């Protein structure tokens, strides 16, 4: 939070374009897809798992959705969301089945399915992109626009979808009994089993939710990019993962908030945006983003919290002794 505020202040003072409505709205438009991914990944992290395969799964969903709506004779947004959500859920369910049924740890499973999904996609598509998507999918939808001195400031469809998805995820994890069971499972798996939580169901819920989010994010990314390219989202998984962890979600489960995940994604986006506005070479981006993530994690509340936990660790370890 503090880090973001400081960075915004710095950018507002050093560039004359950062603190404009145009730029801020652009930041939201650009980040919407990653925030949708982050919402799904947060649920998986809270449940004590991890998912590496979601970004390539989103690419797979894009192709399958394009093919399916083609078969259905065009379709529309409603059909698109249903179809993308369905395929996303199916891919998530594959992960859940492998993790739960075969008791393989999630990082291993999802690294494998990451390769499996991406490899299959490249093989079957031969790396060919799709440009002739239906009109409803490509037509830009502007929800909101302002004429400002710096040009048109506009909010587009992905931002509205992002808002809806964030709200739905918040509702799931904070307000429903299912969400609390997810937290409990991530917090103490054995405790959750003993108290009678349906562990299998929770796995399908977490990875299924992640899958649906990946499907929707894929739909939005294609809408934004105006094309479906097989490797368009390859590599996003680590970017989103870093952002969500930066936002305070704990690897290992039980802790994490949507506000944190959202701010984490925004911090990464603002960094890139700021570098752009400052005229830094794009080749330096990754390096600087990495450094910012390290600094922010060290300075942020969770970093300080971890240090404190280390100092008081003796008490905690006493709990597991004997």
């Amino acid at each position, binding site marked *: 939070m503090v880090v973001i505020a400081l960075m915004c202040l710095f950018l507002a003072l050093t560039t004359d374009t950062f603190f404009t409505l145009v730029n801020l709205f652009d930041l939201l438009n650009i980040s919407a897809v990653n925030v949708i991914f982050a919402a799904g990944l947060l649920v998986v992290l809270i449940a004590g798992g991890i998912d590496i395969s979601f970004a390539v799964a989103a690419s797979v969903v894009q192709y399958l959705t394009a093919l399916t709506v083609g078969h259905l004779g065009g379709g529309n947004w409603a059909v698109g969301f249903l179809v993308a959500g369905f395929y996303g859920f199916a891919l998530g369910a594959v992960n859940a089945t492998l993790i739960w049924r075969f008791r393989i740890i999630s990082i291993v499973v999802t690294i494998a399915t990451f390769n499996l999904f991406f490899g299959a996609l490249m093989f079957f598509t031969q790396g060919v992109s799709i440009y002739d998507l239906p009109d409803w999918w490509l037509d830009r939808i502007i929800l909101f626009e302002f004429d400002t001195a710096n040009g048109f400031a506009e909010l587009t469809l992905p931002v509205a979808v992002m808002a809806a998805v964030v709200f739905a995820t918040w509702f799931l994890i*904070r*307000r*429903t*009994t*299912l*969400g*609390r*069971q997810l*937290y*409990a499972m991530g*917090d*103490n798996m*054995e*405790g*959750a089993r*003993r*108290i*009678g*939580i349906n562990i299998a169901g929770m796995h399908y819920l977490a990875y299924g939710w992640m899958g649906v989010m990946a499907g929707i994010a894929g739909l939005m990314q294609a809408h934004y990019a105006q094309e479906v390219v097989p490797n368009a989202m390859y590599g996003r998984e680590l970017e989103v993962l870093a952002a969500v962890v930066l936002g305070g979600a*704990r690897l290992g489960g*039980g*802790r994490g908030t949507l506000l944190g995940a959202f701010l984490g994604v925004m911090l990464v986006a603002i960094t890139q945006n700021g570098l752009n506005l400052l005229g830094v070479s794009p080749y330096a981006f990754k390096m600087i983003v990495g450094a910012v993530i390290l600094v922010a994690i060290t300075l942020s509340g969770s970093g300080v919290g971890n240090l404190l936990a280390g100092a008081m660790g*003796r*008490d*905690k*370890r*006493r*709990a*597991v*002794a*004997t």
Partner: protein
Amino acid sequence: MLLELRNVSKVFGGVRALQSVSFDVAPGEVLCLAGENGCGKSTLIKIISGVYRPEPGAEMLFDGKPMEGLTPGMARSLGIQVIWQDLALFPEMTVAENIAFERNLGGRPRLVDYGAMRKIAAEMLERLGVGIDLDTPVRELSIAQRQIVAICRALIAETRLVFMDEPTASLSQSETDALLAIVRRLSADGIAVVFVSHRLAEVLEVCSRVTVLRDGRYVGTFPTEGMTQTRLTELMTGQTFDQDVRAADRTANPVVLEVEGLTRRGDYQDVSLTVRRGEVVGITGRLGAGRTELALSLFGMTRPDAGTIKLNGQPLRLRSNRDAIDAGIAYVSEDRLSLGLVQPQSIADNTVIPVLDRLLGPARLLSERKKSTLVGEWIKRLAVKIGRPEDPVNTLSGGNQQRIVLAKWLATEPKVLILDSPTVGVDVGARAGIFAIVHKLAEEGMAILLISDEIPEVYFNCDRILHMRDGRLIDEYLPGTVPMGRIESQVHA
């Protein structure tokens, strides 16, 4: 009778864990289930709570009605609750949500009612007469408070029988007293409590009857009135133990460890003590008195702000525990499971960790031959019961794990050995074995500092007892010249 079991047996892959055991509990009774580790206590609890099925032929009645095909869910709905030793709480969640988590379960998914959960939790805490902030995450609570949260959770349902598995294992005396008061309160409300504990004093204090198991067999059920700790130990182990005060005057021996004016702000102040060759000095006091903090400084893990540490008259500057090990100081931590042993590694590897540099062969590579010689020697000297040295260390019982930790530090050939609560989670028979080793080491000339909050332990095994409170050494007692009861009342005053 509330619960009646006859002829309960359980076989795991050919091993008889339980052999026609009988067990019964009256409504509102506080009963102790006693026995050494591996005697079948946990198996019995798991059968009663529906986790395991007994072998055919068992008779199990609850309220006079047979319990057949018992599942964990059925056991819970009958009002049987188990508070496991590891508590099964959710550390990231608040106290309220942990206590009332049941509200999040069962039926169809619905909205969370945080208000109702807080209300239930507040009522439960009030019923036990305990004040804990409802919104604190459980990870920030002390072990004693977590224990209470776990009890509250178990009482949410219409509970009639509660099993408590080693509830006092990591509590200090005053916290234990508070817990025992709660147990009595439950019993007064008509809830039967079955208590599993290694601490015989509190067993005799709080329970009306004690059921003893040994090697999976039923030894008997005895009224606690007229029962002594010694008698109970004999029933549990099948051996007789004689306890004598070991204390002797060793002022003629040269001083090995000399500490003067040692201070570390916030942890301990102005600590001065000596330990002589062949002497066992006990440090006792309540949890949080600064005993472990002092030990960590003597072992070089933390830096004191002021004061000196001398070993055989030479001042020591300990910048790290490596310095302490090189100087000849060994520290056996209180928490051997997470700090003392590398759990999945083998017994042999665990034993040689601190002395790897002494096991180098030609070409400075680790010599397997030297390693197995050293491991073999210590396993023999400490009489550790193991399968093979290559077995993972976590396959051993608590007492044997403790011996491996000892072996590991003794392999460094220390002049000073600091033992921090060496018998936590170790059963009675194995305790005697560990102290026999301690006495032998002292005889051989080692200077030993024994930290423990169990007064009998320091009373019978030390030459002198130092009493620590709020970071200061406030008194010194010589066992044999002062009755044990007086030390106990001083420490717990």
